[in-house]
C-alpha cells in the first residue's frame, strides 16, 4: 500500500464520520444553528489568541523538528495537541454546530497574519481540524459534554489536518508505519490536551463572568446556584 492510498483511506474514514454525524443530527434541527454576536466574538477571541500564541510554538516546533532529525515529525506530533485546543474549547462553551470549525478557522487566519512559518497551510489546517472536532460533538447530537467527548474532539482534530502537512513537510517518503505512528501520536496528543485544558479553562472563564449568554453558562447555572446555596 502506498502513502497516497493510506491517506485516501484516512480521508474516506473522516468523510464517512462526518456523513454519519450529519445524519445523526439531521432530524433534530441541530445542523445549522445561528450564532449570537457574543458567541461569534468569543470564538474569534479564543481562536485569535490561540493562533497568536501558536505562532512562536510553531517556530519552536520547526526548531524541534530540525534538531530531532528524522524523528522530528513524530516528536512535534506529541505537542501538536496545543494547536487543537481552540476547537474543542469553543465547541464546549458555545455548544452549537460549527463553533469548533469557525474558531479554528479564525485561529488559522490569525496564525497566517502573525507570521506563522507554515504559511497559508495553517489556514487549511485550521479549518480541517476544527471541522473534525465538530464531528466529535455532532456524534452526540451536541448534548453530551463529558471528558470522553472532549477527548474524542481533540483526537479527531488531526485526521484530515495531517494530510496537507505530509505533502508540505515531505514526510510521505518516510513510510506507512512512520506516517501512521505520527497520526496516532497526534490523536493522542489532541485527546490529552483537550482533557487537561478545555474544561478547566472553560469553567475558569465562566467563573470570571465573561461567558454570560452562552450555552455553557446556561447549562452550568443550576450547578452554580446549588454550590452558592451550599456555601
Amino acid at each position, binding site marked *: 500500500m502506498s502513502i497516497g492510498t493510506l491517506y485516501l483511506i484516512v480521508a474516506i474514514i473522516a468523510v464517512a464520520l462526518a456523513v454519519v454525524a450529519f445524519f445523526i443530527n439531521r432530524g433534530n434541527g441541530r445542523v445549522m444553528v445561528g*450564532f449570537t*454576536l*457574543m458567541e*461569534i*466574538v*468569543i*470564538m*474569534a*477571541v*479564543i*481562536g*485569535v*489568541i490561540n493562533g*497568536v*500564541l501558536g505562532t512562536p510554538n510553531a*517556530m519552536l516546533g*520547526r*526548531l524541534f523538528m*530540525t*534538531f530531532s*532529525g528524522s524523528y522530528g515529525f513524530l516528536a512535534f506530533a506529541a505537542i501538536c495537541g496545543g494547536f487543537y485546543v481552540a476547537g474543542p474549547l469553543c465547541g464546549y462553551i458555545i455548544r452549537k454546530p460549527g463553533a469548533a470549525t*469557525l474558531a479554528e478557522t*479564525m485561529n488559522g*487566519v*490569525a496564525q*497566517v*497574519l*502573525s*507570521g*506563522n*512559518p*507554515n*504559511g*497559508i*497551510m495553517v489556514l487549511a489546517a485550521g479549518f480541517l481540524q476544527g471541522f473534525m472536532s465538530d464531528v466529535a460533538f455532532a456524534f452526540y447530537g451536541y448534548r453530551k459534554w463529558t471528558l470522553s467527548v472532549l477527548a474524542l474532539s481533540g483526537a479527531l482534530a488531526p485526521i484530515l489536518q495531517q494530510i496537507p502537512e505530509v505533502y*508540505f513537510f*515531505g514526510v510521505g517518503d518516510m513510510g506507512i508505519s512512520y506516517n501512521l505512528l505520527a497520526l496516532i501520536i497526534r490523536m493522542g496528543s489532541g485527546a490529552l490536551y483537550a482533557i487537561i485544558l478545555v474544561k478547566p*479553562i472553560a469553567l*475558569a*472563564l465562566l467563573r*470570571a463572568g*465573561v*461567558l*454570560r449568554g452562552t450555552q455553557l453558562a446556561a447549562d452550568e447555572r443550576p450547578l452554580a446556584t446549588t454550590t452558592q446555596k451550599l456555601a
Partner: protein
Amino acid sequence: MRRSAVFQFRSGASFFHRLDPLSKFAWLVGISLLAFGAYIAWVQIVITGIVLFTALVLARLSPVEIWRGTWLFVIACTSFLVIQTLTLPGTHVAFRIAGHPIYAESFDYALASALRIYTIILSSLVFVRTTDPRELAIALVTQMKVPYRIAYAFFIALRIIPTIEDEIKTIGAAQAVRGVARQGGIAGRIREMKRYSMPLLVGSLRKASMMVMSMEARAFGAFPKRTFVEPPRMTASGVVVRTVTIAAVVAWYAALATGLVHTMYVLAPA
C-alpha cells in the same frame, strides 16, 4: 520599536497600501504556495528576492523596519540552515569544515528550507503592515460575501493582537505588586505562561464583550445586510496582482507535475 509594534498596520501611500485587502491576501496565499512548492535553493532565492522587492519598493518598508520585524526569525532561519547543512546526508562533498564534509545537496536543501520560512514571515509582515484590519473586515463582507457579523467579530479579535504584549506586562506588574515572583527555567516559564494566559483571555473577552454590548445597543446586527460608506474596491492594479499571482502558482505547479523542473538538489554536480 518592538517586534509586535512592527507587526501591525501603519497607514501609508505606497502601492501596496492602496491595493485592496483581498488582492494582497491573494498575493500572500500565492507566495505561500510558491514557497512550499519548491525545495530548490535557486527558486527560493528568487521568491525571497520578489518578496524583499515588494517590501522595500512596493510597500515602502524601510530595511530597519524589516529587520525589527523579522530579526528573531533571521536567527532561527540561520540556525536551521547551519543545523540542516551539518546533519543532512548527501553524496557530493562541496567542502569540509574541520574535517566534517559539507554536502552540496544538504546545503541546497537547507538554504531552501531557511529561505522558505523567512519568505513566508516577510510576506506576512508586508500584508499586516499595509492592510487596515477594518478594511479587511469590510472586504470580507463586500467581496467575499462573509456574513458581516462574523467579519466584524474577527475585526474585534484582530484589534486585540497588538495589545497582547502590553496586557502581559500589566498582568505581570499586577502580580508583582501582589508578591508573585518571576520564575526561571523551562518549568517556571510554563507555570508563568499558565499564570498569564487566563488573565489575558479573561481581559480580552471582557473588553470584547463590552464592545459587543455597545455595538448591539446601536442596533448592530438588526438587519441582514449592511452598507459601507467607502468599501474597498478591486482596482486595475489589484486585477494585475491577482492574475500574476494565480498564473505564477499554476505555472509552477504545472511545471512540477509535468517534470519540467526538478523538485530538489539541482545545485549538486551531475
